């Protein structure tokens, strides 16, 4: 009797273990499937024309997403101009100045902003900046970068041992020089990693661009005009009724994911797992 109960408990234990393994496999399945289909459908559509030519009119095959790729890079640059200075300097404040407890409000606000749906950023900037323009889109993406970079910077600077700061203070170096030349320099790699991860995150964002960048089938020569971006183009083409556009949507998705994953994996390899993990 007791013997059988023991067997039953062991059986139950291995049964649940098996179930947990199945769960883990089920979580990995979508990842594997997405990559499989991206490579299958995307690689065959990815050619030189796609990377170097402008979009063709609807129903006319051919053309590419060159303007969208350049547009995405432009927007990323604009977002960085907004997000990097504010994020890094704000992170410095949280880590180096002011008591930890007193800064809870800023930390809390940053976490709340991280959880704000990206479409909300889109319409907020739409209201703030009247009209569609590259500036508006860059601002929206920059706003999204701020909370990510501020928290990453703070975490990486907090990892710098206090003895470094104390040693520098003992030498009579001004506080701001200590922060810039010693703490920031020591934490530099981690902060750059945080910035790159934030860049990878906002590059794939589409929702904030709908009401700001709007899209543009030509080259953008004036940043106060609508601009095309890769995620936006993928979205539009995927919903269009033409097969050739579907093909290009796959190719665009492949380009986008290669860029995003290259940044993510590159950063992890570079820092051997000591990268800051972005808030979600």
């Amino acid at each position, binding site marked *: 009797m007791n013997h059988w109960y023991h067997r039953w408990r062991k059986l139950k234990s291995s049964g649940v273990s098996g179930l947990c393994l199945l769960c883990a496999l089920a979580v990995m399945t979508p990842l594997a499937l997405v990559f499989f289909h991206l490579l299958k459908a995307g690689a065959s559509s990815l050619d030189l024309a796609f990377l170097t030519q402008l979009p063709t009119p609807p129903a006319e095959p051919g053309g590419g997403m060159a303007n969208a790729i350049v547009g995405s890079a432009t927007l990323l640059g604009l977002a960085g101009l907004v997000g990097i200075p504010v994020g890094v300097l704000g992170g410095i404040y949280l880590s180096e100045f002011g008591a930890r407890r007193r800064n809870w409000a800023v930390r809390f606000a940053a976490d709340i902003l991280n959880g704000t749906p990206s479409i909300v950023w889109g319409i907020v900037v739409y209201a703030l900046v009247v009209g569609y323009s590259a500036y508006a889109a860059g601002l929206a993406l920059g706003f999204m970068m701020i909370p990510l970079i501020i928290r990453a910077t703070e975490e990486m600077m907090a990892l710098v041992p206090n003895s470094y700061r104390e040693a520098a203070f003992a030498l009579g170096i001004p506080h701001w020089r200590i922060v810039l030349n010693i703490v920031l320099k020591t934490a530099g790699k981690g902060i750059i990693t945080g910035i790159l991860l934030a860049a990878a995150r906002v590059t794939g964002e589409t929702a904030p661009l709908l009401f700001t960048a709007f899209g543009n089938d030509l080259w953008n020569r004036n940043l106060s005009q609508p601009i095309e971006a890769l995620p936006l183009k993928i979205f539009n083409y995927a919903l269009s009724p033409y097969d050739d556009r579907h093909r290009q949507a796959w190719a665009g998705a492949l380009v986008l994911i290669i860029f995003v994953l290259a940044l993510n994996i590159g950063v992890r390899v570079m820092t051997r797992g000591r990268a800051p993990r972005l808030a*979600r």
Partner: protein
Amino acid sequence: MNAAAVSGKTGSRAGLALAAPGKAGDRVFRLLTWLMAMVVLVLLALVGWTLCKGSALSLSKFGWHFFVHSNWDPVNGDYGAFWFIYCTFVSSCLALLIALPLSLGTAVYLTELAPGWVRQPAMSMIEMLAAIPSVVLGVWGIFVLVPWLREGPYPLLVKHFGFLPVLRGPTTGFCILSAAIIIAIMILPIITSIAREVFRAVPDSQREAAFALGATRWEVTRLAVLRYSVRGLFGAAMLGLGRALGETMAVTMVIGNSDKISTFLLAPGNTLASKMAAEYGETPLGLHLSALFELGLMLLLVTVATNILARLLIGAMGARQPTGTGAP
């Protein structure tokens, strides 16, 4: 004379030290960083203020009516969000229902059962899933997931569970249930990684005590780990829910964008976020824009509430917040 020069030199050096070099620099630098930190608070206030101000027109015109009636008619200027609220709620809850057991099983496997060499690579893979942009998942959803669901599982579902009032066909595959499945895929990584942090915060002495009493692996997990982390797991679920409510692009691409009320899960719908995205290209103005802002305000309030609750629950567990450093 020589000695005097030396003493003069040292004197001036001491004077420099007493003047505390760089005080002005310190003050300027501190002010600069303080201003940048304040930008975050200003930004939060700005988002709230913009949405409140933007939706004032719609709020005063429709009042509570906006939440209980369902219409989206820019021509006649009549707006109601009930259907979008319903779709958001149903798709998010279904997604959580799908994702939560899978995530918990995975997190248990990765902290309690898996051999050491599996854990880190598996976790990296799951984080990679989190890095896939929403629009890419949407493309996959449109061209792979939805056609497959339409051909395979949905007809089976209708055949065997058609007696349920919510599962009726025929369906194009672009429906609330498809949206829930896509959302579930998107929130799997976040729930898994937070549940994993929560499990790792359980002291080993708990596990050892249970093992010492002769518990099997499952009993250790159930008694020592799961029971200990209920609060944190609730927080993980809330954080997942917060994400689910705000998911936009992938949902917009598979939900079918219909404003027609239906009680079937296999019918197309529109969530708060997907409705806003679907207005892309309309250049809304006036009352139309105001109603759109009210959708945004609702979305913001719901996600902020779930996020605050989640962070309180996870923080109370002593688990590392999702904003933690990468150093394990």
